């Protein structure tokens, strides 16, 4: 059970609780260069795949693909699932899994768009979406950390009940948003220096997630718990509390994503977030986060999301139908992972 990523785990022991910033920065500086090289190769190979896709887009539909509006479109479509994936990356890096993300997004978006919630305006919608997400995360975390439930089962149960509750609230209806402030945020007038607000939120969550994972004790503890929970516990980490926080974090990301989805689609529906769990897990794994835990990369996850969204975009621009899209998507996932593992292996030997 020894994982290749011992340096971060080894950097944790002084985590008696008081010191938060200084030790990580120091150990980062002394970390073996091999770690950086390897991360770079992984990231580079992902960038290579993305570049190949961009070339494919430019060749097949130059005027429609190579366009600022299309860049905005791809980034906007990536933003909602991207925020979910950032949360998922933390959970997976710590050796867990969160199957409930899609259902939690659905429940949050539905709860945030009821007539009663909308009476409280913009803040009401935002607050409800985030708090419902956090609440689901709290239940997940408590069941897993203190109820000793397997993450797979606990979050599967949450998946079922959150979808059920979302259906109960909507009764199958589409809840349309009438709050002007929320609707306006998804329109062209809301662009900040040409950037859609949803993309800005995505960027902010990505940066915050990267800092949290790579520059704080919290991030080191996350990776340590994922690498070897028992060793982490012996090293003085409160593993259970850490796990609780991680599912809370994933819930928070789902809440934010739900609000973004409400802004984007102008409505709340119990079918929202369909299969987000699979998309988020796939993006994180392609990005280089280990499914068994012990390693997580936010940059990789975000690149994974962008690769998926770009594929969808290119297919749609070329008017490919669903059957072709699905087959090709599967093939490209396999190709991306193969290319990546090949490059990494070559670099290490």
């Amino acid at each position: 059970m020894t994982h290749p990523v011992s340096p971060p785990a080894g950097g944790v022991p002084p985590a008696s609780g008081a010191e938060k910033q200084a030790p990580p920065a120091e150990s980062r500086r002394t970390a073996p260069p091999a770690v950086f090289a390897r991360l770079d190769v992984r990231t580079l190979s992902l960038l290579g795949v993305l570049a190949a896709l961009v070339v494919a887009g430019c060749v097949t539909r130059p005027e429609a693909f190579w366009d600022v509006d299309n860049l905005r479109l791809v980034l906007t479509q990536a933003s909602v699932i991207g925020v979910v994936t950032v949360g998922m990356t933390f959970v997976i890096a710590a050796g867990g899994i969160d199957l409930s993300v899609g259902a939690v997004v659905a429940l949050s978006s539905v709860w945030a768009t009821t007539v009663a919630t909308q009476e409280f305006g913009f803040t009401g919608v935002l607050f409800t979406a985030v708090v419902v997400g956090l609440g689901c995360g709290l239940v997940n975390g408590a069941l897993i950390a203190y109820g000793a439930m397997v993450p797979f089962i606990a979050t599967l149960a949450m998946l079922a009940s959150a979808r059920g509750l979302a259906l109960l609230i909507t009764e199958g209806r589409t809840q349309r948003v009438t709050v002007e402030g929320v609707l306006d945020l998804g329109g062209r007038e809301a662009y900040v220096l040409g950037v859609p607000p949803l993309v800005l939120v995505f960027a902010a969550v990505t940066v915050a997630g990267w800092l949290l994972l790579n520059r704080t004790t919290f991030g080191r503890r996350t990776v340590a718990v994922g690498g070897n929970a028992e060793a982490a516990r012996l090293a003085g980490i409160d593993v259970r509390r850490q796990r609780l926080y991680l599912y809370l974090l994933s819930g928070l990301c789902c809440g934010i994503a739900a609000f973004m989805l409400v802004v984007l689609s102008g409505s709340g529906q119990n079918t929202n977030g369909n299969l987000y769990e699979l998309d988020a897990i796939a993006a994180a794994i392609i990005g280089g986060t280990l499914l068994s835990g012990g390693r997580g990369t936010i940059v990789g996850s975000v690149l994974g999301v962008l690769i998926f969204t770009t594929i969808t975009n290119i297919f749609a621009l070329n008017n490919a139908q669903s059957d072709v899209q699905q087959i090709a998507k599967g093939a490209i996932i396999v190709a991306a992972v193969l290319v990546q593992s090949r490059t990494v292996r070559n670099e290490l030997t």
Partner: protein
Amino acid sequence: MPDLTSRRGLLFGTAAVSAGALLAGCTSNEKEKGSTGSSQQAADDKPGKAVTIGFAGPQADHGWLNAINEQARARAGRYSDVTLDITEGSNDTATQIGQIETLINKKVDVLVILPADGAALTQTGLKAMRANIPVVNLDRVFSSPQAFRCWVGGDNYGMGLNAGHYIGEKLKDTPDAKVVELAGLDNLELTRQRTKGFDDALKNYPNIKKVARQAAEFTVESGQAKMAQLLQAQPKFDALWNHDDDQGVGALRAIDQAGRKGFLMVGGAGALSAFEAIKADDGVLKATVLYPPTMAASAIDLARALGQGKGVAGLAEFEIPSQVTAYSAVVDKSNVDQYMPVGFD
């Protein structure tokens, strides 16, 4: 030829004789039997024999399915002689089978079944029929005609056909007109039928070309995502047909976000929000093609007539028909007021 004329003669002769008989019947029976003029007993609003109707449908996780349940409930509520035993809808085949078997054991008089999956529930339909409980199969058809007494459903091919003809008539004078299709879930047979109908209708208009088609998933979220891509892919087109008004909410959002105008949009299914947009006439949505949820009310009517052993008013037969296909009418500004009460949200 003489053969033909004589057959025709025979036909006319029979018709004349029957008409005469009918007239004669009318005069002679006037006092005794009232004004119907035939011995057909048609189901009407007057209370008759008490009928218990068991209703099993899928989980109402979509506006249309929700409307189906409401239509069935409201229709049953209109009749003092009808008791409706409605199950908690489920998308799980095993659960739905269990629910229907419970209704069979309760010995309801007639069953109305909207299966989550027609093929998977065929055996259950057969079981009910064998237990002498006639089944009215609603919309999603069983794989064996022995599994139901009567099928009531929508016309997916007709939906595409009518949408295509509506768009065709609007664009027939536009040279090199471009049309875009936002389809529903491609895994479903009904989506393919809708697309086929649409394509067949467009073949009548040589100046119109379908330049793009993308499939969404009947959800607002997928409608927004796929429409945004379609708009980026097609900088200019003249008409759009969207299979489903629920995903249309997302499609309209994407159109609004992209600031696109200058084309005609036709929806599908008949959501209240679509009717309101058509009535307001302030956007691209100009019409929608029905897939009427009122078919559930018709199913209740047919089940009641079946339970009371009557025919249907307006039809000559002594029994209810074996198949009823609801028409996919086009609703636009000219007739939207009439349909407003049946719009679902």
